[in-house]
């Protein structure tokens, strides 16, 4: 009788699915630094997305008001104004949009092409692997900032060309990383099991291999966005990246550097934006790495 009752209650148990993603989220939430990074990053993303609602681009960020040149921060101009009387707050806000779109699009493209190249190399093996790996090795032997410079020289300055250059110079690292992690997954028995059940190659790659190999890419991708933002700012600073009057963070630093002594605010705010965004991405990346590390499970 007891047994029957036990059985009945057993039947009523609601089985819950607990995905890997929810585990990772739980662990990520425990890390304070990672959550700080996520919050700051979210703020930056919101600013980037709603930049036009915060301040108008043409009417404020590009509006030259010669009567109020080099104004210090006040309630009218939160971050002050530059040499042409343009509102610094508006320029930093719109700079966020430009810097983040360069960072995300470049890494998006680099990760996507890296995944395709790396996964093909690892899954196909043989001469396909050799060719892809050699090309990636050759690209990696050139310092990435030099490679980006060369690409910028060939394509010409501008935000979209900068993104292309960043994507190209980052692709080899992603391809290598994905190749390595796919190689460890390909030999797993569940891949053989899926094959033995007649699953197609494409499905095996996209459903079985890539989801299990994507962890390192998430970590690397998050941190690489920070690197791209910094490198893009650097290239713009030396004049081969985004051109004035477009308010990219590096461009802002470059065009205001003469006023460093008198109007520090013109450099502090764009600089702070670069530092904070890079810091938040790195903290989040660190947290993700810990959360994804199987050795640290529970």
């Amino acid at each position: 009788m007891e047994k029957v009752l036990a059985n009945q209650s057993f039947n009523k148990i609601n089985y819950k699915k607990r995905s890997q993603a929810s585990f990772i989220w739980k662990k990520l939430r425990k890390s304070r630094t990672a959550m700080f990074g996520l919050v700051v990053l979210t703020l930056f993303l919101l600013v980037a997305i709603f930049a036009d609602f915060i301040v108008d681009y043409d009417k404020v960020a590009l509006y030259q008001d010669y009567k109020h040149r080099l104004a210090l921060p006040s309630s009218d101009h939160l971050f002050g104004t530059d040499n042409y009387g343009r509102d610094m707050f508006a320029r930093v806000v719109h700079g966020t949009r430009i810097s983040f779109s360069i960072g995300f699009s470049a890494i998006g493209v680099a990760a996507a092409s890296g995944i395709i190249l790396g996964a093909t190399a690892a899954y196909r093996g043989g001469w396909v692997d050799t060719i892809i790996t050699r090309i990636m090795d050759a690209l990696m032997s050139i310092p990435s900032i030099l490679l980006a410079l060369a690409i910028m020289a060939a394509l010409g300055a501008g935000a979209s060309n900068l993104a292309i250059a960043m994507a190209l110079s980052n692709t080899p690292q992603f391809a290598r990383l994905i190749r390595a992690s796919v190689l460890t997954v390909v030999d797993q028995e569940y891949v053989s099991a899926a094959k033995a059940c007649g699953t197609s190659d494409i499905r095996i790659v996209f459903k079985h291999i890539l989801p299990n190999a994507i962890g390192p890419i998430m970590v690397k991708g998050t941190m690489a966005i920070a690197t791209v933002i910094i490198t893009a700012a650097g290239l713009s600073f030396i004049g081969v990246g985004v051109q004035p009057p477009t308010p990219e963070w590096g461009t802002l630093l470059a065009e205001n550097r003469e006023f460093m002594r008198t109007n520090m605010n013109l450099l502090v705010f764009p600089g702070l934006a670069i530092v904070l965004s890079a810091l938040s991405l790195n903290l989040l990346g660190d947290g993700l790495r810990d959360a994804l590390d199987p050795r640290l499970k529970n």
Partner: protein
Amino acid sequence: MINEANINALLNIEDLSVEYRTDDAIFKAVNNVSLEVKRGETLGLVGETGAGKTTLALSIMGLLPKNIGFLTSGRICLNGQDLAKLSELEMQRLRGSSFSMIFQDPMTSLNPLMTVEEQIAEVLHAHNHISKEEASKKVDEILQLVGIQAGRKVEYPHQFSGGMKQRVVIAMALACEPELLIADEPTTALDVTIQAQVLSMMNDLKNKFNTSMIMITHDLGVVAAICDSVAIMYSGEIIEKGTVEDIYNSEKHHPYTVGLFGSIPNLTKKTKRLSPIEGLMPDSADLLKGCKFNDRCPMAQSICKEKEPSYYTDGTHSIKCHIFTGEIYKITNKE
């Protein structure tokens, strides 16, 4: 007579040889193996580690490692169709629907990022044009068959125990009701109580679907429990095959089989020690001349080192040894 047997057989392997080619050496993993599996029959494939059991299984599945494993001779016919001649796409269609394989370790043979339902449904979708609802219903049925509550299908593999996982793996392999199921040591990774459960469940399902099964194992107890016929492999060759009765009850045995049985504890016989086979299996990159077992065989004669024995056949029982083929007249074995 041979033709008649071929008609009844579901799987017919003739003179199959498989090589692994690496930069250093060529490993002859399977050598001139001939086998047949009848419909509804369970064949036990027995042998020690490295005897070529898994390679044989993988070559049937067409899953030999790319660029390394090659079929060098022979044919593998399923229902009279030569599998080696099919394209990769045709093989892909047959895998899972006509023949299917269960791997050794249930812990690693399920994708940790997919729910149990997704993984079983994937097999169903790969071979049938069915809607999501139909697939979901079918998944429920299959899970019920392997003794898992249908409600648990939304869970991920890490939420299951080892025995439960192996049930899921079996459910995946049987989802499309294949004619042939290859089980590669399906119970080795499980503890003994669960082993018995899983084996009897597999046997029930096999009978229900009238599936033929190749059970790869090195556990002679498992063979006795569920197999109809047995093939014993050594160094890539089948050195003895026959029905379970032939192997367990016959007076005549290959010396290697004698050694295999001598290596397991026997409750009824009183012996001080087990009598294991001395030595190791020869390197498959450098096979022995003559009989492959001659260096470990307690009854080896000079002829064994020179001439490869042919099969001695007695009804369903065949043994690849000079002792029985008349090359050695005096049988020194008195065990």
